[in-house]
């Protein structure tokens, strides 16, 4: 009896989590007129790929994918480079005030982005980076950096100390310990943190909306959220769903492949082990 209850619960959970994604896939594979019909069509058989063609022919969409990749990748790499150094310091070196810095970092992960949109707009414009991918990457550091520092610090704290201690006993300088012991050990944590930061940067909407104005610089969330198609009255749901699927399918695959690592990173620092 308990097994039956469990099975039904699992079914509900999976349906609840996956249905919207399934609906996007369904919508992307139906001929356009079906999308406005009621009752709705639940199975896309035979599948009609016309929406995908329309979405890809719209120049903004492939360009948006490229832009998102550059911005998310750039912000992630830059954050990781800075964060891994900071995390090594916070996790392993004895420093007065490191507790305060860590608390400030945690506080910054909760920083309201909307509060600095105006000011960042001025700063970015003054640097000549308005409506550029570089400007966007720079602004993204506001939320990727505190997050990566926090998660990496947590990861590094859990590493065994024996290697460092024996290095110090051998008379090593902290810089050598950093280069030869800490950084190599940090690599798995860096990979996980990078994945999480990439997802966060890829999904970002507010800054992307505020700091870009022309289609050649816009990122995927902005383009898909704002896609209104041609001059017709009806919203082009087919191409929108196709675009959504093309963008989210890689994310879904990433989740399936890396779910263990993702969960580790997500719960980092949240639960004491």
């Amino acid at each position: 009896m308990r097994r039956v209850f469990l099975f039904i619960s699992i079914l509900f959970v999976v349906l609840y989590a996956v249905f919207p994604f399934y609906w996007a896939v369904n919508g992307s594979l139906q001929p356009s007129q079906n999308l406005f019909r009621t009752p709705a069509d639940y199975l896309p058989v035979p599948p009609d790929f016309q929406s995908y063609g329309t979405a890809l022919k719209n120049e903004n969409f492939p360009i948006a994918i490229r832009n998102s990749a550059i911005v998310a990748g750039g912000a992630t790499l830059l954050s990781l480079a800075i964060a891994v150094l900071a995390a090594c310091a916070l996790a392993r070196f004895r420093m007065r005030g490191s507790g305060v810095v860590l608390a400030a970092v945690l506080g910054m992960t909760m920083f309201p982005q909307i509060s600095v949109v105006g000011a960042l707009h001025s700063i970015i414009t003054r640097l000549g980076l308005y409506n550029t991918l570089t400007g966007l990457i720079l602004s993204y550091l506001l939320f990727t950096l505190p997050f990566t520092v926090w998660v990496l610090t947590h990861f590094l704290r859990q590493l065994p100390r024996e290697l460092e201690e024996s290095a110090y006993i051998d008379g090593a300088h902290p810089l050598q310990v950093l280069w030869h012991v800490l950084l190599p050990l940090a690599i798995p944590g860096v990979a996980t943190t990078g994945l999480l930061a990439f997802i966060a940067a890829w999904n970002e909407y507010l800054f992307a909306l505020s700091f870009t104005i022309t289609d050649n610089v816009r990122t995927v969330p902005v383009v898909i959220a704002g896609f209104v198609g041609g001059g017709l009255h009806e919203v082009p749901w087919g191409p929108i769903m196709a675009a959504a699927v093309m963008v989210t399918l890689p994310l879904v695959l990433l989740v399936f492949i890396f779910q263990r690592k993702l969960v580790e990173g997500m719960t980092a620092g949240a639960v004491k082990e």
Partner: protein
Amino acid sequence: MSARSSPKERPFSLAQREERLGWILLMPAILVLILVGLLPLIHTFTVSLTNAYMASGREPRMTWFHNYQMIVRDSEFWLALRNTLLFTASSVTLEMILGMGIALVLNSKFRGRGLVRAAVLIPWALPTAVSARVWSYMLVDTYGVINDLLVTRLHLLDEKIAWLARPGSAMASMVIIDVWKTTPFVALILLAALQLIPRQLYEAADVDGATAWQKFTRVTLPVLRPAILVALVFRTLDAMRVFDVIWVLTRGEMRTESLATYNFRHMVDFRNLGYGSAVSVVIFFVIALLVAVYMMLLQKKDND
């Protein structure tokens, strides 16, 4: 400085070297955060004391706290605040309950558990703006699938609901979308904590003849308290800053504004830099207050 010199010969102790190197390593991060966080915040505060407009050409004048007075007098601001608080309370409550349920399900042993866990992660991994667009298609009153299921297929309701056409149902939709997206996060934090509970605690409760509900309230919940608190903190602060789902669904129209969309409209659409900056400062202090409260609660948790 050679690596093999004896401790007596080195001019600095190991502790001093560690500390110095540590601060050097921290410098880039601190500098970047000052550049993109602290400086903009200060700039926002100073602009809030003026009547600046974006690209107006004229020099902004100091108006001191005039903008703040205007905020207090704007009924739309109070509506945005009310909406945000209501949104936060509803979504966080639902997320905690659903998250707990999903965590309990995932804590059971069954084949394919990894796949289910991965499926549960999907809402969290997708861009909010994209998910919101898909949901807005699902919520269309005439041909959307939600109404199709509720009315046409399952006959749970008599009439189709125009979800996005009225403030109440629009806000309810936004809460549902937000809950859908962020419950995975809560569920996984609670699951991580659940998996650490030693079986002996449950076995002891069984010996005492405890029912499933008693086991849940007397064993599970108390041990889970720290994790619940952490999930509560993160989710509350995220919900208070809500922007994406509201902007994509209604652009804050029809009385569905949140603090963030209200701020965005005044700052970007109306180009009122002075007023917008004042709103930004208010939002910052509201969030900062919550962060301070939660930091204290978390400190207390660590001391328990």
